[in-house]
């Protein structure tokens, strides 16, 4: 079974530029998450989708971050304009359904963003 795919793996931009990250979840997984992992910290949830609807975006800085999940499959996370503090690894994860007993999240390898 293919895992969660993310691209690009690495991106270096200057502050005030824009960047987009792409995620393809495991086939059949209804729920998709974007997490931000700053160096030395645990992952922090940015946004959660159930199919193509937003379930939770309470911690998404909406003045600069946006995310969409087209047709309930792939997702794109965009940052515009980027700030120095946005330097982090952006992790995409998916799960079958939040109601499942295990609640297991399957993470991709992440997209590392460096803002100069």
């Amino acid at each position, binding site marked *: 079974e293919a895992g969660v795919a993310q691209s690009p793996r690495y991106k270096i931009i200057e502050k005030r530029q824009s960047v987009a990250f792409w995620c393809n979840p495991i086939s059949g997984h209804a729920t998709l998450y974007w997490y931000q992992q700053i160096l030395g910290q*645990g992952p922090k949830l940015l946004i*959660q989708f159930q199919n193509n609807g937003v379930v939770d975006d309470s911690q998404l800085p909406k003045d600069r971050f946006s995310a969409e999940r087209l047709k309930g499959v792939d997702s794109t996370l965009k940052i515009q304009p980027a700030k120095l503090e946005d330097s982090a690894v952006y992790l995409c994860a998916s799960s079958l359904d939040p*109601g499942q007993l*295990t*609640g*297991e*999240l399957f*993470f991709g*390898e992440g997209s590392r963003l460096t803002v100069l």
Partner: protein
Amino acid sequence: QQQVKQSPQSLIVQKGGISIINCAYENTAFDYFPWYQQFPGKGPALLIAIRPDVSEKKEGRFTISFNKSAKQFSLHIMDSQPGDSATYFCAAGWSKLVFGAGTILRVKS
């Protein structure tokens, strides 16, 4: 009430020793407590998880101990191996997980 506090930040253990990582949570509504393991350059992967209806769960060399009244849970790695060297995150919640800050474990051979 959404915090999960994890300790220690880093841990060095001899091969064959026991590694112990602790976590404390605040929100009594949390009902799922997983531990994730992360190797450099990789995403976190589920290691073991527990629900509050049991006090202990063991899978191979990995054991979770859960104390509901104290709102604490811990990961024990028995017979620690160099291949266990990684960052370990505790988490709490359900589908919306709150993660601890992580513990960097190094097992010396």
